C-alpha cells in the first residue's frame, strides 16, 4: 500500500514520479465530505436503475439476492442526484 506524501522519503519515489499502484486513491474515503445522506425505501423503488446510472461516484450498487440497491457510504459524497432523479421519490435526503 502506498504511503502518503509526508511519510515517504525521496528514495522511495519511482523514476519520473510514476504511480505504480493503480487506483490507490480508493484508500481516501470521500464519504466524509457528506452533509446529507440518501435514505432508500425499497418498498417504493421501481428498480428503474436511474440512480445507478446517474451516480457520479458509482456508490450505488445492485444487490441481486435481496433485489435492492445498496449505497456505499464510504464514498457517497451526498450530492443528491439520486434523490432528485428518482421518479417515484424512493430516495430522500436527510441530515447526516
Amino acid at each position: 500500500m502506498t504511503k502518503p506524501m509526508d511519510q515517504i522519503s525521496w528514495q522511495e519515489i519511482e523514476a519520473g514520479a510514476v504511480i505504480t499502484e493503480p487506483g490507490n486513491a480508493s484508500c481516501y474515503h470521500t464519504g466524509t465530505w457528506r452533509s446529507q445522506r440518501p435514505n432508500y425505501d425499497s418498498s417504493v423503488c421501481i428498480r428503474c436503475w436511474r440512480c445507478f446510472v446517474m451516480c457520479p461516484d458509482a456508490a450505488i450498487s445492485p444487490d441481486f439476492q435481496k433485489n435492492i440497491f445498496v449505497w456505499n457510504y464510504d464514498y457517497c459524497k451526498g450530492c443528491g442526484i439520486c434523490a432528485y432523479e428518482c421518479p417515484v421519490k424512493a430516495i430522500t435526503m436527510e441530515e447526516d
Partner: protein
Amino acid sequence: MKGPESPQYGRLLRPGNTNCGGCGMSVAFQMFRRSIGETNVQLVIPACCAAVAAGGFPFSAYEAPVLLSTFASAASTASGMSQVARLNCEDTRVVCWAGDGGTYDIGLASLSGAAERNEDILFVCYDNEIYGNTGGQRSSATPAGAGASNITKGKIEPKKDIIGIMAAHGIPYAATVSLANPDDARRKFERSINGKGFRFLLILAPCPTGWKSDPSMTIELVRLAVRSGLFPVIEVENGNRWTINIDPDFSRADLERYLSLQRRFRKSEINPDDMGKAIDLQWGKLRTLAS
C-alpha cells in the same frame, strides 16, 4: 457491502477521486467506462479537473494507464501513443479526456493538427464552460451572459462553435453527448470507442462549484439545456452528414428554469428573449446543415 476492488467500479475513475459532489464530469466518466466495457484504453489527460480528480501524489484514482500532459499538448501526446500502439500491433484505444480549456482555447492548435492528420484517437471534451480547477475563470466555452471569477459582469461574446470547427476538419465522427439521455450517450460512446480515425465527443458537464448551482441539479441542468435548445444533441459523420439526435421543444419555461437554477447568470443583463434569438439562429443553421 462491496469494496472499491469490486468490478462494479470499473478500471477508469475509481472511488476516492477528489471531484466535487455532483460533478458532471464524474457522471460522464461512469457512463463512459460502462459503455466501453472491457476495451483496453490508455488515457491522456491534460491539465484540467480530470487531472486534479486523481488526487495528490502518490495517489491516483485511475486504474487505466494515464499520461498527464500539459494543456497545449494533449492531442499531440495522444497521437504519439496511438502511433506506438499501432506499431506494436496492440488493440489498445487512446482516449484524450480534456476539459474545455484544453480543447477550445489552449489545446486547439494540437487538436486541430491531430484532426488534420486523422490520428486514431478519441478526443473527449467535457465542457464545464469555465476553467474549473484554477478558480473558475472564463474560457471561450463560457456562454454569453455567464459570469466568471475574472470578469465583473457577464461575458459578452457568445460561445465558440467547437463542433462546427471539428466538422470543418472532415473528421470521421464528431458528436455531442447529453448526460440526461443515457441511451443516446451509450450509443455514441460505443460507436466512438470502436471507430477508426479521429473521433471527437463534446459532453456538457455542469460544474456545481463554478456554475453556482445545487449539486443535485447536475443532470436536470443538462436536461433543461437540451430541451430549451441551448445544447444541441447532434452527430456529424465525415464532416458533411449532420444528424440531429434529439429534437428540443424550445420551451421558454425550461430556459428560464435553466437560468434560475444557476447563480452565474445573476450579474449580467442577459434575458431569455436574447438567448431565445441566439438559439433560433443556431438551430436555423443546424437545420440547414442536417437537411
